[in-house]
Every structure is written in structure tokens, then in C-alpha cells.
């Protein structure tokens, strides 16, 4: 395992640092590489997003950084502590909240669960009770504070989960798909709370994994795009999108879910494309990134030859999904389906 660089050019070490981290799992016939030489750094006070489709390696990296998993090779540090050699020191300064999880005991109320978790971090009971009251008020679930966790809705459980993660006032907050399965309103509420926590209140560092583009775009100072265990790009959302300015991004909707886009792969001048089929409306929406607008015109002509009606055509502003498409050649949905 390579040694960590703790200080460079007289600068403070990064809050989170990974060097060439590889993680393999046993496969049916050969090992599966979940992480393939991941090197990233995150500085204090940053909200850093790890964006990628399901199975890209996001959770594996979070598990390594939160001391739940050992890397096969490479090195990683959190808060200046080696995650392999000093896991106990790492655990003192971090917290982890995973989306879709409901850690705690269904038979206990929301505030009882929070008290229990506060004790795992050694908070004196009186301090814990004040902190619990504040978090419950901040996250707006006072009316459910005495409700058994088993009776809370998904949204309120996730608020409780977030409160649990903030109880120990972590220096580094790991969030693994924090808004998974939540409605738009609750997602927005939690996102804005996390940003406020990191930027206004605590100056905490956040590592967030998500496969929601808008979430990464809205919350993160920097984003790393990960696919099949490799970091493909890492920069601020703005700069990542700016790199696409030389391309043309077009959106169109065609009649029928049976539109065949196979020919697009063969065409020159196509950077990448994604498609979404809607059975309800019997339409296919597609987004394509091309080097010249003429290539898009050619695509439309070929679609018309399939007896499809072009329902709408728009020029689109680059999004993080387009960044992903430009790097991988296809969208998240196709990646998840494959």
C-alpha cells in the first residue's frame, strides 16, 4: 500500500484524500473491480459530489472512507487519519447517513432513537437532549418527536436519519444518496438544510454520492463523475459544463416508443446521446450531443425515414448529465439498464 502524502508545499493536508484506491470483490469467475485507481482530494468546507449511475463505485468509496470496508490497494485518509490504520480516530470526526435506510429501533420514538445514538458518541445526556430538540426543530418534525419510528413516513424517517448524522457535530459528513426515494419537497428541504449546515453553521466538509444530476449541480462545490470504478472528470459543475460549450446539445421528442437509435452509434460527429421512452404517451425523448448542428439534422432525417413524427425539437443548455454523456457516450438510464 502506498504511503499517504500528508503535507504538500507547506499546505495543510486535504480533509479527504485517496491515492490510487482499488477495491475488488469476488465475482463468479473472476474478481470484479468496484474501484479502479481512484484518486481524489476534498478540502475543508467543501461540498463534494460523487456522481455516477448505480454500480459505479460510489458507495464502495464511501464505505472505504467511513472505515466499513478495506481497500484492496491504495491509500486513503480522512481528517488526516489513515482509514486502514487509524479507523477509530476517523470515526470520531465523521458521520454517515445513507438514503433509504432507517437505522434505529422501530419500537422507540424519534427522540428516543436520537438519544440512543447520541450516547454512542459520548454526549452527556443533558447536552444531547438540547441538541436533539434543536435538530428536531430545525428539521421540522417536532410533531413526530414522540412518534414511534416504525410509524413515521419515509420522508420523516430520512429527516430523523439526517438528525442522527448531525448529532455528533461531525467535521466530515458522508451522505450516500441522501434523498433516495423522497418526494420533491422533502428532497429540496433536506438539500438546503445540508448546504446551510456546511456553509453557514459549521463549515463542515460533505462528501455526497448521488445519481441525481440536479442534486449534484445544486449542492456541490465540486463534482467527480465516476463510472465503472474510475473517476472520469472532477471539477466544479460550472466548469464541467463549460467544457461542453464547443458541442451542440439538442433535444427532441418523437412519436412511438419503438424508435430505433442504433444508427446514432455509427454516425460521425456524435459525442453521445441518451433516450427516455414513455409507454403512457407512446413517445421517445432523446438528447444528443453533436459537434455540428448538421449532424443533428441528419439524425432527424433518419428518424423520419422510420415513419416517426418529430413532435418537438429544442436546443438545450449543458447539464451534468451531458457531461456524463460526453464522457461515457450514453446517459445514466442506459448505463443502469446495461
Amino acid at each position, binding site marked *: 500500500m502506498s504511503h499517504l502524502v500528508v503535507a504538500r508545499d507547506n499546505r495543510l493536508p486535504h480533509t479527504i484524500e485517496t491515492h490510487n484506491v482499488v477495491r475488488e470483490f469476488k465475482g463468479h469467475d473472476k474478481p470484479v473491480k468496484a474501484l479502479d485507481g481512484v484518486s481524489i482530494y476534498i478540502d475543508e468546507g467543501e461540498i463534494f459530489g460523487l456522481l455516477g449511475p448505480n454500480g459505479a463505485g460510489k458507495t464502495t468509496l464511501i464505505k472505504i472512507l*467511513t472505515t466499513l470496508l478495506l481497500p484492496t490497494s491504495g491509500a486513503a485518509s480522512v481528517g488526516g487519519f489513515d482509514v486502514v490504520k487509524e479507523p477509530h480516530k476517523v470515526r*470520531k470526526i465523521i458521520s454517515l447517513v445513507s438514503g433509504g*435506510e432507517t*437505522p434505529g429501533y*422501530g419500537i422507540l420514538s424519534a427522540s428516543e432513537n436520537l438519544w440512543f445514538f447520541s450516547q*454512542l*458518541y*459520548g454526549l452527556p445526556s443533558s447536552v444531547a437532549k438540547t441538541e436533539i430538540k434543536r435538530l428536531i426543530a430545525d428539521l421540522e418534525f417536532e410533531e413526530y418527536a414522540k412518534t414511534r419510528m416504525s410509524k413515521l413516513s419515509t420522508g420523516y424517517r430520512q429527516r430523523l436519519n439526517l438528525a*442522527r448524522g448531525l448529532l455528533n457535530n461531525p467535521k466530515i459528513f458522508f451522505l450516500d444518496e441522501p434523498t433516495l426515494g423522497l418526494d420533491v419537497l422533502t428532497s429540496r428541504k433536506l438539500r438546503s438544510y445540508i448546504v446551510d449546515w456546511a456553509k453557514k453553521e459549521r463549515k463542515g466538509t460533505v462528501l455526497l454520492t448521488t445519481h441525481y444530476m440536479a442534486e449534484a449541480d445544486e449542492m456541490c462545490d465540486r463534482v467527480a463523475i465516476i463510472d465503472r470504478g474510475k473517476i472520469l472528470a472532477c471539477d466544479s459543475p460550472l466548469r464541467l459544463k463549460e467544457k461542453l460549450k464547443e458541442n451542440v446539445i439538442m433535444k427532441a421528442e418523437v412519436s412511438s416508443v419503438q424508435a430505433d437509435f442504433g444508427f446514432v452509434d455509427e454516425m460521425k460527429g456524435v459525442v453521445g446521446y441518451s433516450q427516455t421512452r414513455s409507454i403512457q404517451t407512446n413517445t421517445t425523448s432523446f438528447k444528443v450531443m453533436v459537434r455540428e448542428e448538421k449532424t443533428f439534422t441528419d439524425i432527424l432525417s433518419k428518424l423520419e425515414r422510420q415513419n416517426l413524427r418529430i413532435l418537438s425539437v429544442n436546443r438545450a443548455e449543458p447539464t451534468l448529465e451531458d457531461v456524463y454523456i460526453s464522457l461515457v457516450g450514453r446517459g445514466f438510464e442506459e448505463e443502469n439498464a446495461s
Partner: protein
Amino acid sequence: MRAAYARLWVRIKGSNREPEWLLAELVIPVITLSAYVFLYKMVKAPPEYAGFVIIGGTMMAFWSNVLWNMSAQFYWEKETGTLEAYLVAPISRMAILLGMALGGFVNTTLRAIAVFVAGILIFQVPMAVNEPFTALLIFFLTIGALYALGMMFASLFLLYGREAWHTANLLQEPVQFLSGTYYPTTSQVVPFMVQLLSSLIPLTFGLDGIRKVAILGQGINQVWPNVIALTIFTLILLPLAKKALDFMENLGKKEGRLTLRWQ
């Protein structure tokens, strides 16, 4: 210690919040041991045998608690996602197990006392306790050894989940049989091999010792080998449990199975 106390609190609070559990835990053991008491009465066994059964049934409640409510708890914590929160927290895993053990002990003791008193009163069992302190000593040593064994099993549940569940299921009846829950294994009619195997289980020494002191009126002069055996069990099992837990946690991190569900 805060973590241990908090886990103890959860165990006690949770177990007593639904009274129907309490009822089942009190009535079912009495019914089970009644069957054995009636059987001994039918074959005109000495009246002490009813006492043996009641003590066996009472102590079995602790074994069940150790196996299903402590050792297997890591399996449930893993399935519900709470294990991840434990493992990320800066606490000793042994503190969590200690909390589970103490909470389980308090809960089970209250139920066991109720079962014991009900059994003694219903079946009019003659008690002959000449040395109550010796009885208590053996009882606490048995509990110590049992929960230390449970802590060791917890490491299996931590990593192997469902597979460990099957193993625990496999252990339930043999331990009940070998430790002599409903009959004394030290009796001449029990084959030597069975006695040898039963000597590997701390519960055997505990049951034998408590029966001798509480039913047969014996004292420390007769049960000192039980005291020594139980002390050795505890002294060996506790550090072994800690080592096993560390080993399994590390193995789980290497294999990626530590927080993996449905395995």
C-alpha cells in the same frame, strides 16, 4: 460505558413496551416445564426432579436470551441498517454487546424469577437452600459464562448472518439436551460420551451446581468444581469473544460482507 448503558436502555425499554411479549415469555416456559414435571410425577420420580426441571426451564430462558436476543442481534441490526451506524461510531463493539447482555439479563431475570416462583408454587417443589450465597455465586458465574459465550457467537452473526442463524438453530436443541435442562446429565444412566460433550457447555456446570445447592441442600464443599469450571469458562470466553469480534470485523471489511444484507 455510555454506549453500553444506552444499549441496555433500548433493550429494556423495547422489550417492555409491548406487554403481549411479556405474557408469552411467562406463560410458554411454564407450559413447557409442566409437561416434564407431569412426566416425572407419572413415573413416580423423586419430588426433587420437579425442582430440577423448574431450575432447568428457568436457566434455559437465559440461554435462549443469549442465543436469540444477544448473539443474533447483530444479524437484525445488519438487516435494519443499524449495524452500519454502530460500526461508524467511535465505540467498542464489546460495549454494545455488554449493553445487550446486561439489558437481556435484567429482562430475562424478571421473567425467570416469575417462571421459577410460579413453578415452585404450582408444583409444590421442596427447596433446600442451605447456602444462598453459594447458589447466587454459581448463578452469576453461569450467567457470566453464558453471556461471554453469546458474545463470541455474536461475532459469527456479525459476518455470516443467515448462516449463523442456522447454526444457532442447530445449537438450540443439542445444548438443551446436553446441558441437562430437564434431567441431570451427571446421572449414572447418561452415557460417558454425552457427559463428556456436556462438559463443554458452561450451562451444564451451572445447572448442576444450582440444583445441588438449591434442591439437594449441598454447599460450597460439594460444588467447588462447578465454581472453578464456570470461572475458567468466563476467563477464557471473554477475551476470546473480543478477539473473535475483532477478527470477524476485519475479515468482513476485507471480504466486503460487513454490512452486506440478505446473506
